[in-house]
């Protein structure tokens, strides 16, 4: 493991890769800060650029963007009470009241230190957990993988649906349907191409991500007549107050950070749960742990109330990389985008990545940590300046997002058809978003579609067409039982509990 860490450090600390981490963190912070545009959009916008780089450099850039976007989301939560991403909603509960009391600088510092500490602790967990789990996951067979993929999709649908599980499941099926377009991977038989050569290779992953996130988010803002930068115009972004913390505040953080890190990491590892649930659970847990006197301050600018969700959401980000790197199965929409990018580089994440491409495996882990250091050293002092991005008028912001999206797909295909297809999918996604049909399950399903079919094919061929492979092995049976429990719970919640 030490050797691996050194390989990772050597790769991550090269001048080029360090520069990429900085660029990634900086641009991620800017994009993540804009309400409505989260890490998925930030990463999606970066994918076409990364295709010109080596895989490790490209991934390091994307990891930087990811952490930067999460940090940026916290900034807009604290300053204008407009969380850039759902994972930072809990941050606004105490961060925004602190900003209103003239302690915006302090709130940003608490958020940055907590994120850093949470990220550091979870990076250590990741260092320990990932190689061990890689070895364990070598015992996984096709039926287990197939079961795990269904589990991931069901869990993401359950957690991202906000009570509309069936809507989320429709999006899962739509994502799988889109993934089935093109030649069959084994027999090369064309499917759903309608004799159009442009569809023979299937629909590009970048196209679907750009259309369903970057482009449709921009169109939704215009369609709804929202102005995400309106709140920023009402506050002074250059006078945020001191970022220094006193002894008592530091003491409070010291007790909060370890427990929130452990909770955040565990939640992050679970498929579908992710940063949003981790931050809310950490907030709730912290409220139960503190003394009554501090409990009263929750929602009014509590240090513990701000540190807990910030620590947990960053720890969950690291945790979400565990299933991606060890099993090759993303547990969230953001890691699904990362998986798509990895596949684009010709790298198949999974238990063998640790052995076949150790430099990629370790450099991604190490660069996450370096990314957090960059956020703390560079981004925090620059926040008063970066925060001015929040005041960018939407009249400029939206066309620039659309331009980046079209450019992204143009750079990959040089094909008009792909641009039209992207616009079509984006318009469809905008309407679906309007009526609360969630997009993360669609992306996850699109990314997993090919792998799911391969594993189902192997499982059915091994069991001679019988579906008994779903319960023949104890591991597969446990996974299937978990799926049944999730679906059962959703049905109970939606149709029985409310009656």
């Amino acid at each position, binding site marked *: 493991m030490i050797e691996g860490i050194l390989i990772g450090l050597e790769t991550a600390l090269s001048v080029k890769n360090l520069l990429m981490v900085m660029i990634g963190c900086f641009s991620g912070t800017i994009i993540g800060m804009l309400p409505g545009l989260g890490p998925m959009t930030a990463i999606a916008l970066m994918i076409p*650029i990364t295709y010109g780089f080596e895989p490790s450099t490209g991934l390091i850039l994307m990891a930087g963007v990811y952490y930067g976007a999460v940090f940026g989301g916290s900034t807009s939560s604290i300053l204008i009470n407009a969380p850039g991403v759902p994972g930072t909603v809990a941050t606004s509960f105490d961060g925004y009241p602190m900003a209103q009391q003239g302690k915006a600088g302090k709130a940003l510092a608490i958020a940055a230190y907590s994120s850093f500490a949470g990220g550091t602790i979870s990076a250590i967990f990741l260092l320990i957990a990932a190689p061990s789990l890689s070895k364990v996951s070598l015992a996984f067979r096709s039926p287990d993988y197939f079961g795990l993929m269904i589990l991931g999709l069901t869990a993401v649908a359950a957690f991202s649906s906000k*009570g*509309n599980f*069936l*809507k989320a*499941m*429709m999006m899962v*099926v*739509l994502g*799988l*349907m889109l993934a*089935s377009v093109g030649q*069959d991977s*084994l*027999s090369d*038989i064309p*499917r*759903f191409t309608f004799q159009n050569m442009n569809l023979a290779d299937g629909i590009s992953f970048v196209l679907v991500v750009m259309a369903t996130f970057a482009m449709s988010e921009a*169109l939704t803002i*215009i*369609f*709804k*007549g929202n102005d995400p930068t309106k709140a920023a115009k009402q506050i002074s972004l250059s006078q945020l107050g001191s970022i220094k913390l006193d002894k008592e505040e530091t003491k409070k953080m010291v007790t909060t950070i370890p427990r929130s890190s452990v909770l955040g990491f565990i939640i992050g590892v679970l498929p579908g749960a992710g940063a949003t649930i981790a931050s809310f659970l950490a907030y709730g847990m912290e409220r139960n742990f503190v003394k009554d006197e501090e409990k009263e301050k929750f929602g009014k600018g509590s240090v513990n109330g701000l540190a807990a969700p910030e620590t947990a959401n960053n720890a969950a980000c690291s945790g979400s990389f565990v299933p991606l790197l060890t099993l090759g199965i993303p547990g969230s929409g953001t890691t699904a985008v990362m998986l798509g990018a990895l596949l684009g580089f010709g790298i198949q994440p999974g238990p063998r990545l640790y052995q076949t491409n150790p430099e990629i495996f370790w450099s991604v882990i190490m660069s996450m940590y370096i990314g957090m250091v960059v956020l703390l050293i560079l981004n925090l002092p620059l926040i008063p300046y970066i925060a001015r991005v929040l005041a960018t008028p*939407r*009249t*400029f912001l*939206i*066309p*620039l997002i*659309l*331009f980046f999206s*079209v*450019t992204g797909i*143009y*750079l990959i295909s*040089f094909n*008009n058809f792909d*641009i*039209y297809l992207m*616009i079509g999918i984006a*318009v469809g996604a*905008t*309407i*679906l978003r*309007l*009526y*609360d*049909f969630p997009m993360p399950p669609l992306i996850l399903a699109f990314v997993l579609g090919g792998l*799911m*079919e391969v594993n*189902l*094919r192997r499982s*059915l*061929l091994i*069991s*001679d*067409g019988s579906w008994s492979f779903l319960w023949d092995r104890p591991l597969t049976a446990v996974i299937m039982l978990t799926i049944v429990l999730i679906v059962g719970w959703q049905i109970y919640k*939606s*149709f029985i509990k*409310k009656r």
Partner: protein
Amino acid sequence: MKISPSKIISLLFFIFSGFYLYTAYQIRVFAFDENAAFNARTFPVYLGYAGLIFSALYIILPERKPSNVDVSILEYKKTILLVVLMIIYGITILKAGYFLSTSIFLVLSYIVLGERRWIWVFILSFPFVAIFMYLLHGLLNIYLRDPFLKYLGIIG
């Protein structure tokens, strides 16, 4: 009786799934694969049925959390204009070249969204695209097809 938009979308998805399933059954597989445990048709057929089941359930079951969207406040005109601009951008990008089509797309989009600060409209279009192209083409070595700039002899 008023049908909610979410149910209409689900109904459309039901029809789409039906069409998908029909097309899935039309996939031609090799003769020796016809009765195999798994062929190119198997997975899409399951997906088609899954789509039909989930959308049918949504249509049949009562809505517990209906989405409340006030359609009267939606900005149809601006959104449609932006989509049309993007389509025109898509048509012209290969013929007119990246620089010209992108710059004009940006200028028109800013105007459609109500921007009238002309200096910023100019800066964030032609010079901005030129710098962006230099970054991609000049520094990152990413190929950009541009017949217009090639004709002018600016790029090779």
